[in-house]
């Protein structure tokens, strides 16, 4: 048992480290390192431009989408090399946020279902960040129950006509392309009448409207489709086989291995180390220490769970299901941590101005962002179902709509 690289891994790490040292945008390192959940911004620079420039630079030197084949803009690296890259990229990896959906979900789906020419033409600019992709699955009537989606695609000659609405689409407002899951047959049970496409987000009839979130920020959008035309050549997979195609997308959802999930613990520990309470330093208060210790072991538990997964990758094994716990644990933990950090400040904890708030408003930002973390990419409840069913082997829930034609499923009048 050790934390050492194999000789090949060490050589790869040294090469990555040297390239990053020579090429990374060092001037932003400090700001990126200090950014926590809810606020990644750069003073005096447009983060989107900085991110695109960094991605392009990486792609030109062969450091983008490392695990993708070289023909499609990648490096053909092993999974462990990808993890090592992420470790070495460190805070600069936060610049990749806007590419995650494209690289993690759209790219792999294209790779599995697009034609060879399409792959050669669309994937390299996706890898290099020149083109940004989004994923159009969720709808007002289909969140956790994605297969309940209602956006229609109707065949018209060599084209499909799309009408409907998507929601929670990250980055739709700056995306060039998207993968789109639609209903092509409402007369069969819901999973059996879906079809997947990719489309140009600049197509006529596509309208993107930002959602103002509960936190006040806008990271997501609603996307409306009014008679949008997509050529049949941009269909991914067979007609009415879209559910299986979407499973490929979801299974490729970026593994958090190596990147580490935010728990808020390091921030809270630092805060308590400097905070004075009425009766002395917070860190010497029995109640504070007990809370801290409980969160400390969750944070370290996640850290070493991820080390175990990396070790499995290093041996060429597939990581086990234990990695599925990361988002579930970190999501509610960061919320609890934020609430406690505010609690320690008493009435002043409610202040949210950068000037007035302790720790520059970091915990207030966490508090307001955290509810979204527990919902996006699978709610806490869906994550528990996944663990229960796929890891522990418990039976799926009874689904009353499973064998019912989609258009016969009761909707309570909402369509």
């Amino acid at each position, binding site marked *: 048992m050790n*934390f050492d690289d194999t000789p090949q891994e060490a050589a790869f790490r040294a090469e990555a480290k040297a390239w990053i040292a020579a090429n990374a945008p060092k001037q932003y390192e400090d700001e990126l390192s200090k950014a926590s959940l809810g606020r990644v911004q750069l003073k005096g620079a447009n983060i989107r431009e900085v991110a695109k420039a960094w991605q392009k630079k990486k792609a030109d030197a062969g450091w983008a989408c490392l695990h993708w084949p070289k023909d499609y803009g990648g490096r053909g690296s092993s999974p462990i090399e990808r993890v090592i890259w992420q470790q070495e990229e460190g805070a600069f990896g936060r610049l990749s946020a806007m590419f995650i959906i494209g690289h993690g979900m759209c790219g792999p789906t294209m790779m599995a279902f697009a034609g060879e020419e399409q792959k050669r033409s669309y994937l390299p600019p996706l890898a290099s960040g020149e083109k940004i992709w989004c994923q159009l699955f969720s709808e007002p009537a289909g969140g956790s129950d994605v297969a309940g989606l209602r956006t229609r695609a109707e065949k018209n000659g060599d084209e499909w006509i799309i009408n409907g609405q998507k929601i929670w689409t990250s980055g739709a407002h700056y995306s060039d392309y998207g993968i789109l899951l639609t209903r092509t047959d409402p007369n069969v049970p819901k999973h059996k009448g879906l079809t997947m496409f990719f489309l140009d987000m600049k197509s006529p009839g596509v309208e993107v409207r930002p959602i103002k979130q509960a936190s006040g920020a806008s990271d997501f959008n609603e996307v409306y489709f009014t008679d949008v035309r997509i050529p049949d050549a941009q269909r991914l997979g067979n007609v009415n086989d879209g559910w299986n195609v979407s499973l490929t997308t979801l299974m490729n959802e970026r593994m958090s291995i190596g990147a580490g999930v935010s728990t808020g613990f390091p921030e809270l520990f630092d805060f308590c180390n400097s905070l004075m309470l009425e009766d002395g330093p917070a860190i010497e208060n029995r109640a504070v220490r007990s809370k801290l*210790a409980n969160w400390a072991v969750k944070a*370290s*538990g*996640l850290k070493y769970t991820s080390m175990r997964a990396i070790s*499995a990758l290093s041996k060429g094994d597939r990581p086990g299901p234990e990695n599925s716990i990361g988002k579930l644990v970190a999501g509610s933990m960061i919320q609890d941590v934020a609430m406690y950090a505010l609690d320690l400040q008493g009435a002043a904890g409610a202040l949210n101005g950068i000037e007035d708030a302790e720790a520059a408003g970091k915990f207030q930002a966490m508090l307001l962002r955290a509810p979204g973390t527990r919902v996006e990419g699978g709610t806490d409840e869906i994550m528990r179902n996944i663990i229960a069913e796929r890891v522990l082997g418990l039976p799926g829930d009874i689904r009353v709509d499973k064998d019912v034609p989609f258009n016969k499923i009761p909707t309570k009048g909402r369509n």
Partner: protein
Amino acid sequence: MNFDFSDEQKQMRDEARKFLSEKCPPKAVREVLDGKAAYDKALWKGLAEMGFLGVAIPEQFGGAGAGHLELCVIAEEMGRALAPVPFSSTVYLAAEAILIAGSDAQKQKWLPKIASGEAIGTLALFEGKGNPSPKAIKLAANGGVLNGVKKPVPDGAIADFAVVAARTGSSGRESDISLFIVDLKSGGVDVKPLTNIDLTRGQAEITFKDAKAEPLGAAGEGWGVITQVLDRAAVLMAFEQVGGADRALEMGRDYALDRIAFGRPIGSFQAVKHMLADMYVSATLARSNCYYGAWALSTNAGELPEAAAAARISATQAFQHCAKNNIQVHGGMGFTWEFDCHMYYRRANAVALGLGSLSYWEDALIDRMRKKNAA
């Protein structure tokens, strides 16, 4: 990176699991639970023959000379099987204290006997309520004899010898504490078994009245040794706890698959699924913290104090969580004597206290993290 046990170590775990599933089924644990025996003597003998008692004891002292990683995988299986034997007292506490502080002669005298199963040992630390603290130690050592009372002493009623923490000074500092080895079969030692929540593992009160004692390690250095022993034992016990947590989770899962209510397996209800998913989460976090503890223990790393505290807290929580919710999943049947659930519940809650309770380790963890931060 290879943050995992080796294939050989995993093979040893499989061997231990196979051995314990044959020699230590729930029926055997119940012999002790029901008071028919103080511990499972046949199992103890078998563990010695398998080489498990001396797995981390060097060959020159009669052990297998493997190491602490091997001991960790065996500990996990002991916890999973709820083995009703004085393994933790003898191997994690007494043997480790002697390995850390013993003279060559003491090692020669006791370690081979531990490895062969001839001698059961323990650590006599506590004197009534409270967590490990040099201030709590009143038992006095003077002129080679001990006077005072220790309670609770794990496996004290069946132990052949004890490492005893005694007061040898009155400065109010840690250097007032020294360690001694006492042959519990000798004069001046009175042992009284105590009832405790885990009926499969004994506790005792031991009264020392001018009992002859041999110093273990240098005078005044006892507390430092105890701290080291507790850190090592915390990691090893955490593996037992993770083994127990995993087994309790499996029992709950199996029952949820088997039990039908309202026309369907109860494991298809989200309330039950989510409870089991949360048990899996805490068992997984604990296991990962334990692996870090094992790494620190086996390499004698400077991180051991922090890693041990984290493993201890995480594993204590996981075992308690899994044991109590295993009963919940079982419903009324889980609350019967007949079902095994309560044996895990009892063990989970007893071992949560034995090396110092959660609040003690929480405090220790934060102290140790601060020290690291300051360094």
